[in-house]
């Protein structure tokens, strides 16, 4: 027999954007919230660098920093970028005229957010893949999903929040219009220190076809990623460990950083990192958040913060709407806000990439240096 669930808000995706949506709803409304997540929550979360503003977001979500355990946020000691020049510069000088940055342990961070969701009365269903989304006569959604152990299950909800990430499978099913701006792809691996421990810094190094990024996760581990266009990675088989490792060897500075270190499991991971924008006004009672709404280039360091703020925003739209007209009005404003933010981001992104002028004929760089019209 099929499990049947009912809730006010169904959040698809259990990353920071989905969890923030759920937490803000649970904190401020009496609505019932279910999160479905297709992964088993064990997928490797690549750590990332965040600014201090993360703490005010957590305060807003009413989660004390102590809940995340002792090593979830490690302050970064240095940022070095070989970008636009083979003389190093402090990365902040180029990209983010901001304060301190922190390296965040995403496994810990994501798990803690989910734990808080559950503790505050939300439900989380891992390993649950949505199969079909139907519109019921009463205006609610009926989402049919599969779980490897429990089989088919159905969830009826009034609001659908799409936190399904860059792949945004849900928005595709529902027919949102997604504008893809580029197909930046990251390929990375973890390295373990053998004798000497790593310096606690971030390193960025650009080359003709993309750029390298590395961050220390602890004294013993770093993550190293190469970002380039998907076509380039595919053509040069950089999604294979051997080719990727050989290519890493050709880099000037990154290769030195991993000298004497061993790759953790002779395997690389591949993640989409492109920029896209979701237009969703045609889909009723639906709100995309995080990467499903707008996906940002990782150079911007905007992903996590946006995931959480957009989640909070979506929650307050749902929580504050008294009628469906009211909801639609707030939703329209949300879409417009996103458009504005996204337009600013595009300008910023263009400025970042324009600081690299060493390869004027490189399609990777020139493509990113062109002025992008507007969002629409």
């Amino acid at each position, binding site marked *: *027999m099929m*499990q049947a669930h009912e*809730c*006010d808000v169904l959040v698809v995706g259990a990353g920071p954007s989905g969890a923030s949506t759920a937490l803000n709803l649970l904190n401020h409304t009496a609505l*019932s919230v279910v999160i479905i997540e297709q992964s088993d929550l064990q997928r490797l979360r690549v750590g990332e660098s965040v600014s201090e503003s993360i703490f005010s977001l957590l305060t807003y979500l009413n989660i004390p920093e102590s809940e995340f*355990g002792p090593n979830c946020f490690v302050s970064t000691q240095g940022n070095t970028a070989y970008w636009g020049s083979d003389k190093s510069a402090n990365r902040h000088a180029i990209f983010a005229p901001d304060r301190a940055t922190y390296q965040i342990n995403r*496994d810990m961070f994501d798990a803690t957010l*989910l734990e808080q969701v559950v503790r505050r009365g939300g*439900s989380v*269903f891992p390993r649950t893949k949505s199969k079909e989304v139907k519109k019921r006569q009463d205006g609610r959604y009926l989402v049919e999903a599969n779980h490897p152990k429990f089989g088919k299950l159905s969830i009826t909800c009034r609001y659908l929040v799409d936190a399904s990430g860059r792949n945004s499978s849900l928005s595709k099913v529902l027919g949102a219009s997604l504008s893809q701006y580029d197909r930046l792809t990251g390929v990375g691996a973890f390295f373990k220190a053998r004798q000497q421990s790593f310096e606690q810094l971030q390193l960025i190094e650009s080359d003709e076809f993309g750029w390298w990024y590395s961050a220390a996760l602890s004294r013993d581990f770093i993550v190293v990623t190469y970002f380039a266009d998907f076509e380039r990675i595919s053509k040069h088989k950089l999604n294979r460990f051997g080719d990727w490792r050989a290519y890493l060897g050709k880099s000037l500075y990154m290769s030195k950083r991993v000298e004497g270190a061993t790759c953790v499991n002779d395997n690389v991971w591949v993640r989409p990192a492109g920029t896209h924008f979701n237009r969703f006004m045609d889909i009723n009672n639906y709100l995309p958040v995080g990467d499903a709404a707008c996906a940002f280039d990782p150079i911007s360091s905007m992903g996590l913060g946006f995931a959480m703020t957009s989640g909070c925003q979506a929650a307050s739209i749902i929580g504050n709407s008294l009628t469906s007209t009211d909801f639609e009005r707030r939703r329209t404003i949300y879409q417009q806000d996103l458009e504005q933010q996204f337009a600013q981001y595009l300008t910023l992104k263009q400025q970042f990439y324009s600081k690299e002028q060493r390869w004027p004929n490189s399609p990777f760089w020139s493509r990113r240096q062109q002025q992008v019209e507007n969002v629409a």
Partner: protein
Amino acid sequence: MNYSLHPSVGVARLGNSKGQFYLAPDQIGGLPFEADESGNKIDSPVSQFKDAEGRIRRQGQPFKIIDENNNELTLSSDNVKAITWTVHVANKKAAWYEFNELQGNLLFGEDNSYRKRGTPWRNKDADDRRQLIIDPGPRTISGANAQATFDEASAPDNYPVSFPPKPCQGTEVETLGNILTDSEGRLVVIGGYGNAGGNEPLESYGGADTWHDDIADGTVYCTVTFDDGKELKLSAWVIVGSPDFAPEIVNISNLSDTMFDVAIRSQNLCPEMYSNGEFQTSYQASYYRDIEPIIQRISRYQWVSNVQSMSAFVSNIFDFKDNSEDNKANREAYFNYFRKPVDPATVLQTPPSEQTNQQLFEHGIEGHIPLMPLNSGSNSVSNAEDNIVDKFLTLTQTQYFLLSQWAEGKFSNEKPVANTSAQDAFGIFYADQGSVGNCVGLPMCPGIEVTWSMQNPVVYAAPYVIKDQSMGNGFPSGLDPERDECEGGGCQPGDLTKRMACPWQADFFNCTIQNVNFTEPTVNKVNEGNEADPNMVPLAPTYYSYWWPPQSPWDVLTNQYDDQSVTHLPAGQQVNYARGINSFVQMVEHWSALGFIRNQNTQEPHFPFFTESERNHQLFAYKDVPVSDITGNPGDDGTDIPVFYIPDDVKTHLSAGCSKAKSLLKGLEEKMAKPITAKPAIKKVPRSGTRSRR
């Protein structure tokens, strides 16, 4: 000698301990007894109601064949060749009508029948209503140390067995318990494990469609074969109830009082007390038998509820047992604070404003102290337009009559002399009173173990004896899902418990407190929502009233023994009994975490000290929440609200990220295996709106 089977109505109780059980108490307010694993009684009262894993032990009900002088027939009796038992329990809840308070109670006349009221069936769309019954069929065992289980696999051939399908939420009901015989061939009936499951969200105290639980009741037959080939056939009934969480605290009107009231008024038990349709004012009551138990029960309510206005009634402000004329004014003053019971047969002809059971105070809506007993009546939930309103509790008519005789001075205050008889002066076996006396007798909404059908004389064959529709022949072709035994003809297995909440946890969680309107005799609730989305709330002004605190405690004291690093409370603090169980869902999953309220000073019966014990404190987390967190005013941070809750088991303070994620997955999927979709919180408030919790 004249042998019969006792108790005439036995009471087993659920528990989730896999193997452990104890034996039912034989006194009203007595502790149950230890037993070995074969069910042989050990003559020592139970000290631990839970096993080592913190799960509640089941209560087995032993049945005995005795005569008036307590001589017992067992396999070791001289001329007994064999004793054979056949027990048939069933659960008819899912097949019966929805529980809509007093709708369907035929004592109020034919106009209140389910049909006239249009009461909906539970699971009204089911094609085959008989399939809704949990019916494992009869089981027969004989000799010593035999046993049988009420599961599907061991059902007799050719019997139309039915068990519910596997539910999406909660736990499947696969058995209604088991029976065994001890080493002398006595029967012990042990109930189910407290499993409950269904598919629909739980939304009201009556439960929800698609749900089942493993409560049950049914027939107990016994055949004694003597050496000379002669046979003696006896019968009884057994009820399986939820755990008695305060076994030494007794309801002011318990089920024995209810059965006694029926026997007095309808079964001619004592013509000197009641004949020709009326109580006889010449009757001499007995202080120790009829009056003192009422006073003692009132006194013990204080340990499980806050009913301070009842305290004078237990304080010996005058000598309660003094039957002199000088003391008459005192007794009458006392008696006059008791609400007069109404007779269901005539109450509807009484103008609502004169119905004594709707009145909180001595002058109706006005007065200086609430009338006695201060407790909800059997319907403080719905309105007179389509139901019978019964706002405040009264004693049974017989209890009230005996109290009036006491007030008049028509009572003896001689202490009863101890004797070896198995029966009291009315001919009722003590064993029969000692079992049902630990069940709720009033109010009945629906109650805890059984409900208002027990007030109807037609369900009885004799005082305290349930009328068996099959006359001892059993039900070889199965049970009837729709037949109403209150129309006459006797009962089937499942009939006594079929009106109870399904699952029982719904009622237990939701119904301890009721805010009862005390100004409008025909109205309990008003709709604060709209027609499409009703939100029925108690009509103000209301009075804070309890349902059945001795069975479902509410205000209890912490004890001096528990580790305060896990209780998070000092000893001796009055706290909410169910703290930390914050939803229907949690009650279904975690009912066995609740404590037992026990008298810690049993050596000195005049000086009881009841505290909570055996609560599974480890399950619950604790937080002091500053009021400022709720109001948003930083200035409110000087006051904290203690909050108990069940944390997810992932919060086992695992340090590494990945192991945290692993345990998170495990915990989440364990929950997913038993998800229960609670109704969205902004929807309807549960009908009885009880706890100030929403």
